[in-house]
């Protein structure tokens, strides 16, 4: 069990069970920042490229790549962190590939109890149940706590992303741009783990979506709505600037959140994605390059701030004061029956079947004939392969346990308790196989047909087990398939 250092009270609104045990994300560095506002904030951010924790006070001067830690040059402020920021962010220095690999590795315990998460030092406590004895309520508790843990990590990254974007907007320096891009990658890597936790307020409430029709509020789409994504929707906000007056709710989900930030930070063209005859495209073309850039950055800052706000909102909804979802989930009180709550949790796992195998991998591999994907995932950033790895890590968090190597309660413990240890073992082995293959996968645009084929088939071994045996009418633990509970049976 990795335990975070408790340096501050929990998040606003989170109760003791949720926040104090899980989400003490207030960073060591930002506490120092808050305490000494005149200090150059850069000094208080830490970044490692080697996965080794560095004490903020000892962070040395620049360097990149091979350097274990690097101090950021340029003014990076904790914009938007007002009061409850959780980021203890580091400066740039890691190369993209290195950062990607550290993100994949998930969280590791750093010196002094902090957790190195990608290149960021965060203080989120990994929830690993004290008792190995299985019960369905304990599994739900572990899953809810794990979701909170990943939310806590994501909030830290989102806050750093917000600060990085603000820094870039202020300086327009190329290195600040790189930092912002890197911060986006780190945040996305954590978010992709959270994609496996689509139950409760994050989840889509529609029955057809097959997520959580009981407690879903669709908040996930405000942060990341893929496969619903359209650069034209981003362009509309950039030139229309409706968000300035009417706030982020004026933006469609296809043009906000992490996707919008990806296009704003990575897309290098000066064209609009909207049809040339549209008002947006004409306005886009009429803007001076400098004005367009300024507008893009305005929107990027608004989006980044919104991502942080929405994330905090989700975390609060787990707390008794705001929605008490955690407790309602643990007791299954918010669901028609305990089994429905377990179904919802099981459906979260099926993200690797539909979204990951069929859409993210099946389309480029040529196995999927069509899918409701408007744009390939992360194709501007070229990090689709990193997302796949993170999705698998998220799967392990839920199926095996939230610990860095799958420790804790998960579905595998349920299978074992129910007398189906062999199936649990086979799923874990299939996960290991898929993870090993996908870890070697190059960026999807560069991957050969054979590499994509190998990754798809390795993942299919895992998803076949899910769909054939873990979920559905043949499930030994009676977990239904998503969206299939529609009516009577006999």
């Amino acid at each position, binding site marked *: 069990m990795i335990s975070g250092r408790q340096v501050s009270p929990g998040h606003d609104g989170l109760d003791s069970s949720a926040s104090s045990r899980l989400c003490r994300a207030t960073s060591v560095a930002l506490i120092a920042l808050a305490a000494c506002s005149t200090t150059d904030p850069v000094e208080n951010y830490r970044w490692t490229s080697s996965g080794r924790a560095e004490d903020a006070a000892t962070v040395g001067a620049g360097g990149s790549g091979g350097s274990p830690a690097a101090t950021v040059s340029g003014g990076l402020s904790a914009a938007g962190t007002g009061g409850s920021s959780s980021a203890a962010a580091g400066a740039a220095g890691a190369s993209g590939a290195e950062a990607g690999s550290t993100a994949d590795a998930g969280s590791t315990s750093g010196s002094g109890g902090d957790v190195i998460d990608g290149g960021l030092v965060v203080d989120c406590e990994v929830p690993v149940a004290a008792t190995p004895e299985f019960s369905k309520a304990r599994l739900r508790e572990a899953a809810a706590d794990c979701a909170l843990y990943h939310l806590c990590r994501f909030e830290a990254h989102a806050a750093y992303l917000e600060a990085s974007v603000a820094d870039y907007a202020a300086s327009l320096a190329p290195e600040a741009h790189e930092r912002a891009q890197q911060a986006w990658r780190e945040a996305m890597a954590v978010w992709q783990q959270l994609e496996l936790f689509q139950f409760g307020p994050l989840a889509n409430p529609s029955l057809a979506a*097959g997520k959580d029709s009981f407690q879903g509020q669709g908040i996930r789409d405000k942060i990341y709505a893929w496969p619903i994504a359209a650069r034209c929707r981003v362009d509309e906000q950039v030139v229309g600037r409706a968000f300035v007056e009417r706030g982020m709710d004026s933006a469609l989900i296809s043009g906000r959140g992490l996707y919008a930030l990806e296009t704003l930070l990575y897309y290098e063209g000066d064209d609009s994605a909207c049809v040339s005859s549209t008002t947006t495209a004409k306005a886009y073309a009429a803007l001076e390059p400098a004005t367009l850039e300024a507008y893009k950055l305005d929107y990027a800052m608004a989006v980044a701030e919104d991502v942080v706000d929405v994330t905090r909102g989700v975390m609060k909804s787990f707390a008794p004061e705001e929605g008490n979802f955690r407790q309602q989930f643990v007791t299954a009180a918010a669901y028609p029956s305990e089994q429905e709550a377990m179904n919802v949790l099981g459906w979260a796992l099926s993200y690797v079947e539909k979204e990951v195998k069929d859409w993210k991998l099946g389309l480029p591999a040529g196995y999927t004939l069509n899918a409701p994907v408007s744009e390939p995932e992360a194709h501007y950033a070229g990090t689709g392969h990193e997302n796949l790895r993170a999705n698998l890590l998220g799967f392990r968090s839920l199926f095996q346990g939230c610990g860095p190597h799958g420790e804790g309660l998960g579905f595998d413990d349920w299978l074992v308790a129910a007398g189906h240890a062999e199936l649990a073992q086979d799923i874990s082995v299939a996960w290991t196989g898929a993870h090993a293959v996908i870890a070697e996968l190059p960026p999807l645009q560069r991957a050969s047909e054979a590499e994509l084929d190998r990754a798809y088939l390795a993942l299919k071994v895992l998803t076949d087990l899910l769909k054939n045996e873990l979920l*559905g009418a043949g499930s*030994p633990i009676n977990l239904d398939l998503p969206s299939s509970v529609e009516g009577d*049976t006999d």
Partner: protein
Amino acid sequence: MILNLWRAKNLERLARALLVPVDAAWLSALRIGLGVLLAISMARFLAYGWVDRLFVDPDFHFKYWGFHWIEPLPAPAMHGLFWLLLLASVTMALGLCFRLSALVLAAGLTYVQLIDVSTYLNHYYLAALLVWLLALSPAARLWSLDAWLGRQRGAAPGHTSVARGWLYLFRFQIGLVYTFAGLAKAQSDWLLHAQPLRIWLGSCTDLPILGPLFTLEGVPLSMSWAGFLFDTTIALWLSLRRTRRWAFALLVVFHALTRLLLPIGMFPFIMVTAASVFFLPGWPRALVARLARRVGRFSVARPTQPSTRVPTLVHERVPARVGWKARGLVLLGLAYCLVQLGLPLRHLAYGGNVLWHEQGMRFSWRVMVRAKGGNTRFIVQQRRTGQTWHVSPRRYLTAMQEMEMSGQPDLILQLARHVRRDLTQKGLGPVDVRVDARVALNGRRSRRFIDPNRNLAELSDGFGKRDWVLPGPSGPPPHTRPVL
């Protein structure tokens, strides 16, 4: 044989025995009860959005053999149909335009079932059968608006009895359901391993009081045996006068439990209502009279006391001569019984495990005896280029259709042929369609279901044995432990 029977004196004797008039009260009570339940059932379809989800939303519908021409109505008409069936259920219960109401209801239920095989449920099928029988029976002779209106118009009082054959026919039908449901449990998965009950009980461990009991070793197996013994013998206990009341009480408890533990909708209510046919024909009057005595407010005539307001059967007698119409009806009834007996036994012609290959599964009252699910993926190969695609059924089906299809070979075949048609229309043809299908039965590990080397696009379905379905599992299912 039928002709011999027609000529034989046996038929005359049988017909006379079946034509003995009995009080029509039981039939009217069944009409009212079933009408109310079906009205609720239709209302559930409308309220829960099932009309859209089951009939309107799907782009593809699985057809019954010989009924490929049945198509769903457009959405507004489909909703209108269910409203019409709701109305027909109510009017049938009221006995208003009874014959028309019941025929509309029976035809409507049949049509709805024929739209898509994947919506097949034993209790929908039973409901349709019972309504057809009701529609053909004189179920509106008593306690109906038709009879009341007739009396208001000064018509002579009609019959207050029905031929005993109707009673026997309904008893046969209900007894058949229970008995075959019981016989379907006479297999090792159910009786030796308590599967799939162990799996289902595992999802009910949160129930107050009962839930923790399910986790005790021995409880699932005891419940399996109890279910088996109940189903196979309840018709007998209901038929015996001495045990009838206790058997009915047990039946109510049994169905209350199944309603509590399993998502079987209206089935328990339909069965409890239908099982009332095992009581004496005049049971509703006796019940009302008893209640009235308790309440002390009403005075209701007893079955043996004729009354102008509540007429009874005493006026009717067996006709002196059994006409051709009556003989025909008796033969028709016998034929119906033979078909109903034969359908659940047809699986014997195919051998193997019917729960696996499904040949002989539908219309045979194998109620809640399998937890079967799997995954099907169509492997489509373009003949010209050799290009291969993995086609997910979800491209054509709703989640519920996909779930149903995955365990039923004839549905997999239907979709395979549809995939070929669809891709050919899109200019990708000609294509071969093979299938990667695995299925898990009663808690076992999944195994391959369909021969992956067979090009399903070239096969057609019929009544012959499906040699493209691979053999089912032979070993016992694992020992599932319900956990808290």
